[in-house]
């Protein structure tokens, strides 16, 4: 699988079909998940707002997944100096930022009726997602501010690895901080005790969001491959 993706022609041939197929799968899974979710009975505690969970929690999951992909691709690029791994890292960042953004806004809309505030620092997971959002922004800012593409890529990769090592510690420290100040966690969703009537649609939507990320990621890598081809061709024409 990996060696197949490493070959440029094979990658383009593979992703040409894989991206739209994943997209269709994503649409099906998200549709099924949301259909089940919207038809689920109101939660005895949260009432109808439980419906926000099916779009908020998967977005937060995929945001973490996107950073893991960003870090993994950066590692491959740094160690094996592989051009497509760098394209993959670059392509994952804006998607991750978009998913974190969606998770933040939906989380805020979920929290307002529950806790009476648009933003509750007591929700450790939401705070982690906020820090994750800042990590994505930092990555994109660093990459965008370096003119030399190769140097920008390398610097961004190093940053992504530092962030990848830090991310579990950040998550742990935020949760630790939360228990310290809160006494008990007010986070109730996504835990193992969730009623199957909510768990099923949540998992379906989560799988669908992941597939959607996969499809968009592949397509963005394709765009990046074409962009690089176009820039190097343009340079060759200009120098010829």
């Amino acid at each position: 699988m990996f060696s197949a993706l490493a070959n440029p022609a094979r990658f383009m041939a593979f992703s040409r079909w894989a991206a739209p197929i994943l997209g269709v799968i994503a649409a099906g899974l998200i549709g099924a998940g949301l259909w089940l979710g919207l038809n689920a009975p109101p939660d005895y505690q949260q009432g109808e707002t439980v419906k926000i969970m099916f779009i908020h929690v998967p977005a937060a999951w995929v945001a973490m997944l996107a950073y893991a992909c960003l870090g993994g691709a950066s590692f491959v690029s740094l160690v094996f100096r592989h051009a497509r791994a760098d394209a993959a890292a670059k392509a994952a960042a804006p998607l991750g930022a978009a998913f974190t953004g969606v998770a933040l806004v939906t989380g805020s809309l979920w929290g307002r009726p529950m806790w009476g505030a648009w933003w509750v620092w007591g929700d450790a997971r939401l705070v982690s997602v906020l820090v994750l959002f800042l990590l994505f922004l930092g990555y994109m800012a660093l990459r965008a501010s370096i003119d030399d593409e190769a140097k920008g890529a390398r610097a961004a990769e190093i940053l992504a690895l530092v962030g990848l090592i830090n991310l579990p510690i950040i998550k742990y420290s935020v949760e630790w901080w939360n228990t310290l100040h809160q006494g008990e966690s007010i986070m109730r969703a996504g835990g193992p005790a969730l009623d199957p009537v909510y768990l099923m649609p949540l998992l379906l939507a989560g799988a669908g969001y992941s597939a959607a990320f996969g499809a968009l990621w592949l397509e963005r890598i394709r765009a990046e491959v074409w962009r690089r081809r176009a820039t190097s061709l343009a340079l060759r024409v200009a120098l010829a």
Partner: protein
Amino acid sequence: MITALNVEDLALQRGERVLFRHLHMRVAAGEAVALAGSNGAGKTSLLRAVAGFIRPVTGRIAFEGAAGALPSDDARRAGCHLVGHQDGLKPERRARDELLFQARWHGGTASGALNAADRLGLTRLLGLEVRVLSAGQRRRLALARLIASPRPLWLLDEPLAPLDADSRVLLGVIMAEHVATGGLIVAAVHDPLPIVARTVGIAP
């Protein structure tokens, strides 16, 4: 101790542009090589590649010692001087502090550094801050570490540019001595070097 530098089938790239391909060059102990080429041909890049800063696209750069091949990293850390356009001198520090640091960092001693300063006519200037020195005086201060901390391979990028006629002659004498004692010199130049040197052309 480096006794030879081998550049085999080297290609270098800056950004998207390939500077040159298939460069072969061997520099043995006691040899001086002048790199010739137009602006932007890649003379500075070649020197920086030999110093280990730029990774070759293809080909390799290898160092030999008396006992055979040397690990590149060790050879560069212990056996190589690079004097370029940027001299690494801090304007607000005194010339003496900068000279002593550069000399000791490359393995020289304080007395060696002061002797080198004497040889290059810098002794009177050592108490001054680097920012008040002229371009030629700064270049001489940077060149002083060549004598102060003996290393076999000298990579010189336009070493003559800011120097006056007398200093050029002096640098020629110093380079000749270095070559005579088994040193290696690779210099990027526009003017001819003041010593006997083989010319290697750099072109795409």
